[in-house]
């Protein structure tokens, strides 16, 4: 049918072209719009124009003619445009764009048909492979959609990937911004963006971290794909470009989101000179740590287990190496990080305080490149490149330590210490076609150490996942993911053959999730999806080691559970100034058999004497279920283009808990699932923020305040035993918490001198409100948590002396953390001993540290095969002995007070990196 109409159409056009009249036109047209132009001609000639005003609204005419035929006049007027015309015998002029499809046949007869034809044409094109614009030149003008069929829809969707032109890797969090409308979006973790625009001509501005800011001229006729290849800032490894979010901080609806790319991370000096993701996270406002030997971090009063740490979607249970001195993420492979402190998107759940999302590189799709680095304690090697050019890429990296030779240099007894760790990553990305992308990620890490004792500790993470990203249409996008996350530790001791043992703990987690994004129209975007996690925990397996061991195997039975969630969230742009995101996540938790559960008498303390029933459950039986809604609401109002106000409310639930009665995360901390005796933790947070950009968005300032309530947080009874405890509920106490604070931050993102300054005031107080606890901590009154550090001032400054040399200074001050100190002393067992009472009633002295580093780069010759760089610096420049703890201990009959500092002096470091 289509074919027939099309032929008729062509025939008619040809006929029309022959039917011309000979009236002449004279006139001057000074930059007037098309409609006025046609009116003027109509008033002085027999011609009558037929056109769609909307199609021509951006057309201006600048012309001076004298006694010309109508064809000449129109040709001149629309020279260089796509406007076509046809004139019929009745002196009717039909104006259209692109193809001279306008007919000389009676307009009423054919006009509808013609438009039908074209709709079918579009439909045909979209059903097949839609033409993809590959955008990389700033001079050309690109057309999106089909010119001849200008959509009347005011809401055209343009999608595409923003990639690095050199490597083909996606550029995450790049801002794609239409200047004329002040409308912008950010690319997602795959570099994918979706922009809604009415038809018209635009200048599309694209800013990506480390990439050259680029502008493209685009004419939008209809929906289409536009992939953008960005050029790298040629000295990308060296400069200090943090420009990607120039406006993002004002435009995004979310509060409490921090984004950093690897270049910013690399600048912050760390103890051994190796860039470290977690150390930099600790410099962000609202993030604290109990001390230097811990990569556990506390976000807005949350405990360390309330952070969901994701690396390319894989949950990392222990993100540290080497007593917490290093984080588990190979810095050469990390592309960027996002930390959600307040507005946690509805697609995330399962932890109360924050989500730390670490994105790894996708791999160079064009050339094989890599890097190698060597520092005092670690060496690393990374390689990336195409497996199939422009389609499939891989990244692989490995890191290992050779610290043992250093430990041998220590005086006795520490020279008998041993410590080893390694980690390895592999990621593969395959772009099957424009609609289907596949991502595979694998990670493994292992730590082993022995601190001059007969006990050896080891732990490891293993993660594997596959993601399939599919575009159903330009409006509907989905990501399907499945994977396995494992964490386990082993402690063993073999010196005393009779008591020799191994102690194992493990978490296996099987995930499946799917996330959908649906762009309803310019003002409404829907995100929805579901996720499910199957947990299998081995809470403790104590086994004899060797033939002579008399150890009786003691195995705490495995626990299993299913945690599932459905979510739906909508982003609604009420007006250009007001945006609202509303989300609901409904989570279900089923604690599953096989297992034995003790039930305790109501109203009595949970202890072994009050067990009323001990019930066995068969495999697969649902022992109990918790479920409930979680709300994620945020609103942003732009008061002026450079000033926004945001507010948010978030609630979250957590079903898996880390049990630790040590201050720092210890390698023997275990995790426990919620069960009939241990309720899920719940958190509610309200927050309010003010954001103001100064000096053309080069300085970003913000103030955020929050108040948070935590329910059923787990604290511990005095002397709690958490390892190999078959009824751990008798040793933990459900506690409630309240946290509040304010975060002030000033960021300068560009220029020779850049960096950020942040001040945080925050409190976290706990209270054992369980009436069945006979002897609550601090008599049931509020007490500060271990990581309650009210004041924190951090400055990270970078100064770029020239392209090859830059200086960085990181200074931080914070209130000392609370500790429990003795209230008295007594003599017992041949020695003076100390007596403790109220928990966390004292504080260790305040913390202050300044670190300094210099980054020296080799030359910048683009064609050179390798590029190298040095990092030199000093950690703890002032040599201040910052106490990690202050404690009193009985020695030789007396009580002595000590201060333990992890770094008691200034520590120089050096690091060498080579890129090829």
């Amino acid at each position, binding site marked *: 049918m289509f074919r027939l109409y099309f032929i008729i159409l062509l025939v008619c056009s040809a006929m029309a072209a022959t039917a011309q009249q000979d009236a002449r036109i004279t006139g001057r047209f000074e930059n007037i719009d098309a409609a006025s132009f046609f009116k003027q001609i109509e008033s002085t000639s027999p011609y009558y124009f037929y056109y769609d005003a909307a199609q021509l609204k951006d057309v201006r005419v600048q012309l001076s003619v004298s006694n010309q035929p109508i064809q000449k006049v129109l040709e001149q007027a629309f020279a260089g445009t796509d406007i076509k015309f046809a004139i019929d015998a009745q002196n009717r002029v039909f104006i259209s764009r692109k193809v001279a499809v306008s007919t000389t046949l009676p307009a009423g007869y054919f006009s509808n048909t013609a438009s039908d034809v074209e709709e079918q044409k579009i439909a045909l094109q979209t059903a097949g492979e839609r033409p993809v614009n590959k955008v990389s030149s700033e001079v050309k003008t690109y057309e999106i959609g089909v010119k001849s069929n200008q959509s009347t829809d005011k809401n055209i969707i343009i999608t595409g990937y923003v990639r690095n032109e050199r490597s083909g890797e996606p550029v995450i969090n790049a801002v794609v911004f239409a200047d004329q409308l002040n409308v912008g979006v950010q690319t997602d973790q795959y570099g994918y963006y979706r922009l809604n625009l009415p038809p018209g001509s635009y200048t599309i501005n694209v800013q990506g971290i480390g990439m050259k800011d680029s502008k493209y001229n685009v004419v939008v006729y209809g929906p289409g794909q536009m992939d953008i290849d960005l050029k790298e800032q040629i000295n990308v490894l060296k400069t200090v470009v943090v420009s990607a979010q120039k406006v993002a901080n004002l435009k995004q609806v979310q509060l409490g989101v921090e984004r950093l790319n690897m270049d910013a991370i690399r600048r912050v000096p760390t103890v051994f000179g190796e860039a470290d993701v977690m150390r930099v996270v600790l410099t962000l406002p609202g993030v604290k740590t109990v001390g230097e030997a811990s990569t556990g971090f506390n976000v807005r009063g949350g405990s360390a287990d309330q952070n969901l740490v994701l690396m390319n979607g894989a949950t990392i249970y222990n993100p540290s190496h080497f007593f917490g001195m290093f984080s588990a993420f190979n810095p050469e492979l990390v592309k960027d990080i996002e930390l959600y402190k307040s507005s946690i998107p509805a697609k995330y759940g399962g932890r109360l305080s924050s989500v730390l999302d670490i994105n790894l590189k996708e791999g160079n799709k064009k050339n094989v490149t890599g890097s190698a680095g060597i520092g005092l304690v670690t060496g690393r090697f990374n390689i990336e490149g195409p497996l199939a050019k422009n389609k499939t890429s891989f990244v692989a990296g490995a890191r290992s330590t050779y610290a043992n030779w250093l430990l041998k240099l*220590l005086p006795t007894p520490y020279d008998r210490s041993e410590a080893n760790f390694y980690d390895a990553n592999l990621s593969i990305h395959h772009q099957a076609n424009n609609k289907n992308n596949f991502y595979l990620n694998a990670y493994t890490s292992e730590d082993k150490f022995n601190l001059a004792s007969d006990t050896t500790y080891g732990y490891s993470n293993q993660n594997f996942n596959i993601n399939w990203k599919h575009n159903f249409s330009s409006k509907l996008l989905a990501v399907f993911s499945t994977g396995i996350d494992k964490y386990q530790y082993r402690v063993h001791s073999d010196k005393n053959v009779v008591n020799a043992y191994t102690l194992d703990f493990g978490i296996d987690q099987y995930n499946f999730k799917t996330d959908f994004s649906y762009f309803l129209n310019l003002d409404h975007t829907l995100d929805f999806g579901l996720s499910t996690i199957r947990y299998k925990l081995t809470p403790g397996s104590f086994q004899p080691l060797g033939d002579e061991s*008399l150890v009786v195997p003691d195995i705490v039975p495995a626990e299993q559970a299913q945690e599932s969630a459905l979510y739906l969230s909508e982003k609604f742009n009420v007006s250009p100034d007001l945006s609202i995101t509303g989300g609901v996540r409904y989570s279900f938790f089923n604690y599953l058999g096989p297992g034995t559960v003790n039930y305790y008498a109501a109203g009595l303390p949970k202890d072994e004497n009050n067990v009323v029933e001990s019930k066995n459950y068969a495999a697969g039986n649902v022992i109990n279920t918790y479920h409930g809604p979680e709300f994620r609401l945020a609103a942003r109002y732009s008061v002026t283009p450079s000033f926004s106000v945001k507010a948010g409310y978030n609630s979250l639930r957590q079903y898996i808990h880390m049990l630790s009665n*040590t201050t720092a995360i210890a390698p023997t901390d275990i995790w426990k699932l919620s069960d009939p005796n241990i309720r899920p933790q719940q958190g509610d947070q309200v927050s309010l923020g003010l954001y103001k950009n100064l000096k053309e968005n080069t300085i970003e300032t913000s103030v955020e305040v929050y108040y948070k309530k935590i329910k059923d947080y787990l604290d511990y009874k*005095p002397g709690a035993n958490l390892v190999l405890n078959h009824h751990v509920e008798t040793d933990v106490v459900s506690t409630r918490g309240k946290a509040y604070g304010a975060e002030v931050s000033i960021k300068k993102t560009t220029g020779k001198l850049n960096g950020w300054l942040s001040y945080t005031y925050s409190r976290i107080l706990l209270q054992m409100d369980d009436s069945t606890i006979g002897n609550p901590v601090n008599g049931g009154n509020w007490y500060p948590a271990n990581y309650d550090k009210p004041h924190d001032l951090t400055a990270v400054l970078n100064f770029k002396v020239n392209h090859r040399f830059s200086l960085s200074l990181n200074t931080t001050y914070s209130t000392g953390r609370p500790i429990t100190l003795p209230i008295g002393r007594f003599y017992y067992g*041949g020695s003076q001993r100390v007596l403790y009472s109220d928990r966390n009633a*004292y504080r260790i002295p305040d913390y202050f540290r300044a670190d300094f580093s210099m980054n020296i780069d080799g030359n910048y010759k683009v064609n050179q095969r390798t590029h190298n760089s040095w990092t030199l610096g000093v950690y703890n420049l002032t040599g201040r002995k910052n106490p990690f703890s202050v404690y009193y201990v009985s020695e030789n009959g007396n009580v002595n007070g000590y201060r333990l500092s992890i770094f008691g*002096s200034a520590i120089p470091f050096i690091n060498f990196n080579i890129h090829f």
Partner: protein
Amino acid sequence: MNKLLPIFVLLLLAGCKDRYDLVLKPSDTSLLVVEGALDAGNGPTTIRLSKTLKVNESLAFSPELNARVTVEGQDGSSYTLSPSGLGRYFNSHLGLTTGQEYRLRIKTADNKEYLSDFVRALPTPAIDSVNWHKTEDGLMVYVNTHDPAQSSRYYKWDFDETWEIRSYYASDFEYVGGTEIVYHPMYRFRCWKYGISQTINIGSSAKLAEDKINEAPVLLIPFGSEKLSVRYSMLLKQQALTKQAYEYFQLMKKNTETLGTIFDPQPSELKGNIHCVTNPAEGVIGYLTAAEFTQKRIFITAQDLNWSYQQACYYERVKNNPDSIRAWVPSYLPFGGEEIAPGVVTYYYMAPAACVDCTKRGGDLNMPSYW
């Protein structure tokens, strides 16, 4: 660079630990401390009562004097412990029966009454052996025991120790006083010193297939210690504990002895089995236990060990005239001399008192009966 490395790695891994005292808030807390166990065997029972002190108080010990201390049996029996000074309450032989339950009642001079829970008098198996090994850090003394009945499972050990010391210089002279020095061969050359365990030593076989304790460490004598300069003896006493008592002592040990690592647990309150009847809110430190004690004595001789105890000593030649002698004694003491004729000394050899007189090193001149 290579020279720097060990230094900062040391700082890093050994941590940087130095003496430090925070200003502690003054506290009025003064709790009763009850230390001791009821001996259900043939030995004496001593209960020691004291009060807790402020951490930075100079007083070392505040004994609770003039209390009335009685042991009550569940069978209605009653035994009295009589004060024997320094807060000690003593009974040479209570004559308790193992398997029976007993409790302790204390009435202090300020009319407060304290009462323990009933505790069962436990039988204790014999100590199999006490042995030692040289380790990288010194000499480690271990205990080995087992319970054929497989019922003890939790153990506590305390010890009395004795070691002989000898003066660096065997003296032929005794400084009597003033400037008078008399001939006295082997004057104050051998002494004996006494000590008690200063750590809480507990062990458990609860996780083992047999009730067997294999080489549980009870004492580390660091290299170069005076204790092994000549000969050392330990009388190790063993008692069986209940699980609750074991947990109490384990917590006390964690709170007071093993802090100072990166992964320290939180110190926490101790809750024992003794309560204040007069004021139930008042805490009491201590855990009453009752058991038959078993014991074993061992000797370790320095010659067998290649031990390297070094006392830093030197001597001066001092002319034998009152003025010269007065200038040196009593911080220096004579141990030898230069004689021009029998009994005619021209010069004395004098060394710091601790090098000559073993009592100046805290020794006791009486040889113990078991030596």
